[in-house]
């Protein structure tokens, strides 16, 4: 059954593969569990793979009220409990979901065996919050189409993948609920989990996309340097690396996890 009630909302999820080790995939703002389609079939041959549509996105329940990063971490913990998933967990996050991964690890140190951050956005500089609030307001006023020039067109130039992959991603992106999209941006605008980086106590891989136009490689490298013992890698990829460069990402993940 692909839906489950947890933390007061309905979540759409997929659980694939069979193994003792569980990978948790946290999608980006504007994405959905489909964002991981390019890597899941292969991963599920070796690992148990859990992915879900975050609150307000994909086929999960849409939101109308502001929420905090804590709500998203509560969601994940409630889903784990409801589905009776057993540690150890390997948590893979993309962009803003790195905030959620950081807090989840801080709360569940014994259960998290490793972390992977793809083009992470661990926290927003308060000076930049205004720009994110503007994007949120624009989405609420004009819908997702109104924010495309400020967001998707910058983060995903069509040249980064084949045409079908791009159109598929764009289609899903434009189909987002503008209110849920805006609330995610407002949540991001007031969240800064970067102080947790230095306290990470499990093996960690940080991956930068060389062609990420909205987060430059040195910025991601700077984040990796704040994590004790973290491995840092650069791959040919844009911001949405599981979508634009699944093979390169998959190769790194398999090497990191030795599977």
């Amino acid at each position, binding site marked *: 059954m692909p839906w489950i009630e947890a933390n007061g909302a309905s979540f759409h999820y997929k659980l694939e593969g069979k193994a003792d080790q569980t990978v948790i995939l946290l999608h980006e703002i504007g994405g959905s569990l489909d964002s991981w389609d390019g890597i899941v079939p292969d991963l599920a041959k070796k690992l148990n793979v859990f992915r879900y549509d975050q609150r307000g996105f994909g086929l999960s329940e849409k939101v109308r009220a502001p929420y905090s990063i804590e709500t998203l971490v509560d969601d994940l913990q409630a889903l784990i409990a409801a589905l009776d998933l057993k540690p150890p967990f390997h948590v893979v996050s993309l962009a803003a979901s790195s905030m959620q991964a950081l807090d989840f690890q801080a709360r569940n140190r014994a259960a998290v065996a490793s972390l992977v951050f793809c083009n992470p956005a661990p926290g927003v*500089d308060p*000076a*930049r919050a*205004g*720009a*994110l609030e*503007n*994007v949120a307001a624009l989405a609420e006023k004009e819908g997702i189409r109104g924010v495309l*020039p*400020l*967001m998707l*067109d*910058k*983060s995903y*130039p*069509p*040249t*980064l993948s084949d045409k079908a992959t791009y159109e598929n991603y764009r289609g899903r992106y434009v189909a987002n609920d503008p209110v849920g999209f805006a609330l995610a941006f407002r949540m991001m605008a007031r969240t800064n989990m970067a102080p947790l980086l230095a306290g990470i106590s499990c093996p960690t891989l940080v991956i930068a996309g*060389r*062609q*990420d*136009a*909205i*987060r*430059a*490689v*040195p*910025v991601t490298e700077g984040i990796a340097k704040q994590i004790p013992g973290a491995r840092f890698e650069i791959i040919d990829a*844009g911001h949405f690396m599981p979508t634009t460069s699944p093979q390169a990402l998959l190769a790194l993940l398999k090497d990191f996890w030795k599977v």
Partner: protein
Amino acid sequence: MKVKANGIDFNCRIEGKRGAPWVVFSNSLATNLSMWDVQAEALGDKFQILRYDQRGHGDTDAPDGKYSFDVLVADVIGLFDALEIERAHFVGLSMGGMTAVALAEKHPDRLDRVVPCDCGPASTPQSAQQWEERIAIAREQGMEALVEPTIGRWFPPEFIAANKGTVDKVREMIRTTPEAGFIGCASALSNFDLRPGLSKIGTPTRFICGGKDASLPGAKALHAGVAGSSFVEIEGAGHISNVERPDIFTRAIKEFLVSAR
């Protein structure tokens, strides 16, 4: 080569791969197109490069009077039209960076991506006063008197000490800048405000700034105002970050530009 645009003759250099996407480089106050030597060489295999001496700089004409960013932007569009450049990436440093931001606000249809470097969002009463003082020095004593104070402001002392050849080239650029051009462009810098148009910028933008550049807070404020922009801080570098750290700087622009379109 000389190209007539917006009423004056511009000194331009066109290099790189014919037919490839254009990258245009725009210089800072009191320098010229040779400040981009390393970047033009490094990007030439993938891009067609246009470098030009900004109005009043290098071998471009230096009309008397005050210039403004409206004029510097019109210069760029005039050059694009004259050279039949429909769209381009645009990289500029300091005054060239502000030209890049102003272009992105006014002419997004002519741009693919922009990289404004070591620049800020607006003049202030204090900065206007400083420009007035420097304009007075240029008028009364000539550019020579501005060479050392400018070098000291642009580069960290340890860089000046260890890179005499490079710094001497920059000294020569300052020394040979036409006084009228310096005065005209300094007037533009003493009175501008890019803030009102920032939130509308849809052109993918990467800001670059030296970690020791006094422009750093201003560059961060620009980054904060442009949604979806990225920022690269070059640790330890001063104001002319592309000259100080050509390795990091060039990689940061190349990574950003190769994935476009």
